[in-house]
């Protein structure tokens, strides 16, 4: 594994570490800049020598850690003088063995490294700010972790963290030397939010908070888009004035809330696509119909809760095949939403029953089973004869849409 870190211009160090060779090459041109923490002062001596130690413990060789020119900086606040050979840590062979094999500890270390890396990445703008020393803190944390590093995997993560941290260090340095005001993306975002008309809440006085409370108005992005028009020389798009059809789907309408738990994230995503496909009036009509059918099911069930309701008797309308199909369609919504359930009775015939109020569990832990029903006029007639269905349980709606 080879790790090269370069700083430009006024920045600190050029260094390279080759761990696949027998010696580590490390040159630092350390410049004593108090705010440039990475690399030159703190980390690499200890890391280099620890790697050498790892090689030794694996019976690798008898390399010595090289002499370093450059700073004699230390990685801890207590200014211990440490020889490169010893690596600044007193661990005997026996300890190496145990720590090496402790999988839990290994995992923990790797996980902590990953957390550190991700925190540097997520809070990059924060760390860039010259007003704090968060970058130093991260590096000190990394130093602590490194003491327990024994295997290549962890060292690789350590190296990755250093790459990220030194990258940040470089940028911090360049900020100091660039002319003009630095660009602060956080402030930019805040100003944009105000521009877009963010309505902040009354009690928002906490300046430490990075995220503003409040809500964006509906036309927030449109406001920004209109301002963008003044910066863009976009060619206006050509459209027919009176088009032959409106290609865009209509905006999704709010679904009528039904008795169920708040929709899970999946449901949130499924909803808009479904709604977009249906046109408005059909959408409402379907829902009304489904509710109506639920009503029939419940009242029929309440009449005699002990006797099972045959599914076929429930959905079939002996006077109209198309109404039967509609009933099956609408009933399937009840099943899907967990408001009704289907089961087989002793004779393996399908029955349907409403789900009790307390049992309602949309998308809950019950395993979902799906099946596809098909029905043809021939089968429909056979069912009518077999079950001797004279009347439909589900009354046709008053307004026929056939």
């Amino acid at each position: 594994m080879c790790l090269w870190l370069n700083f430009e211009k006024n920045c600190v160090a050029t260094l390279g570490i080759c761990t696949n060779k027998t010696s580590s090459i490390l040159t630092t041109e350390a410049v004593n800049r108090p705010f440039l923490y990475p690399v030159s002062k703190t980390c690499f001596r200890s890391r280099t020598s620890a790697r050498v130690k790892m090689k030794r413990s694996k019976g690798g060789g008898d390399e010595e850690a090289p002499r370093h020119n450059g700073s004699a900086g230390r990685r801890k606040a207590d200014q211990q003088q440490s020889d490169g050979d010893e690596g600044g840590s007193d661990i005997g062979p026996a300890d190496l063995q145990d720590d090496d094999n402790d999988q839990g500890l290994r995992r923990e270390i790797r996980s902590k490294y990953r957390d550190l890396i991700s925190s540097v990445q997520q809070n990059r703008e924060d760390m860039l700010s010259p007003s704090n020393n968060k970058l130093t803190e991260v590096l000190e944390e990394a130093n602590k972790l490194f003491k327990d590093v024994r295997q290549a995997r962890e060292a690789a993560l350590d190296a990755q963290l250093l790459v990220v941290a030194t990258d940040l260090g470089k940028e911090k340095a360049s900020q100091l030397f660039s002319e003009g005001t630095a660009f602060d993306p956080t402030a930019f975002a805040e100003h944009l939010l105000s521009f877009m008309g963010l309505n902040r809440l009354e009690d928002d006085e906490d300046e430490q908070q990075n995220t503003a409370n409040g809500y964006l108005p509906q036309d927030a992005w449109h406001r920004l888009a209109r301002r963008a028009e003044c910066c863009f020389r976009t060619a206006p798009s050509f459209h027919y004035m009176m088009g032959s059809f409106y290609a865009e789907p209509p905006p999704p309408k709010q679904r009528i809330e039904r008795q169920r738990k708040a929709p899970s994230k999946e449901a949130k995503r499924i909803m808009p696509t479904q709604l977009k496909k249906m046109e408005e009036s059909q959408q409402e009509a379907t829902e009304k119909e489904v509710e109506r059918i639920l009503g029939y099911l419940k009242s029929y069930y309440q009449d005699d809760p002990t006797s099972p309701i045959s599914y076929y008797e429930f959905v079939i309308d002996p006077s109209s095949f198309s109404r039967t199909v509609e009933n099956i369609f609408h009933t399937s919504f009840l099943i899907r939403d967990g408001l009704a359930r289907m089961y087989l009775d002793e004779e393996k015939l399908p029955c349907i029953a409403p789900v009790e109020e307390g049992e309602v569990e949309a998308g809950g832990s019950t395993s979902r089973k799906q099946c596809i029903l098909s029905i043809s006029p021939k089968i429909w007639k056979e069912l009518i004869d077999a079950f001797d269905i004279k009347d439909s349980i589900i009354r046709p709606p008053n307004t026929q849409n056939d």
Partner: protein
Amino acid sequence: EDDDATFTQPSTSQVQRGLEKLTPAQVDQKTAEVVQYFLVKDQKKMPVRRADLVKHVVKDYRNIYPEILKRAARTFDQVFGLKLVEIDPKNKMYILVNNLETPDKASPVSPSNPKMGLLLAILSVIFMKGGVVRESEYLIWNTLRKLRVDPGEKHEEFGDVRKMVTDEFVRQRYLEYVRIPHTEPIEHEFRWGQRADAEVSKAKILEFMGELHEQDPKTWTQQYRQAHSLPNSSQASTSSSSQR
């Protein structure tokens, strides 16, 4: 692409001879077809490839292609106030931009596209940061998150944000999302796309920055210098000057 490789630009004398064999009406008709093709393609802001243009529209008239393109460019300019711009001399791609000055205020009549607002935010960040932003810095995504747009979630207005930024805007050439070589794992960086270079005024963006931060745009000296450098230094060349 294959079509384009076999398409050799006819010489001026070839064009002359080709024109002699056609009536003016025929040439006008073909020019009009090319204009309409461009206008429709521009609806989605997708660039037009020369290969497609020749294959689908110009067809048999390919021997007078340069003349047709020249006339189309003139039509765009004189009739529509648009400029035909070649954004990629190597791959021969064209776009249409507005030839008129950017307005001081948005047009009250035409509906605005909210995606342009998001694009403005992204382009501004990239510009203020010197023209390149590595994705691994999370700068772009973090800024969007602060604006209540989370690339990990489906957004109310924009849908799949990640796809919009790294795919749609890139195909439209507003952004460039390129792989940084020799990175493992693969990393990308964001830059302005060729369309942005042609369409978007850096000076105006800086002006907007000044308004937002209540500062004089000149305080960002490096960006100011870049925004007010020679007018054509970062602009794509027009088709009339680089027909090749």
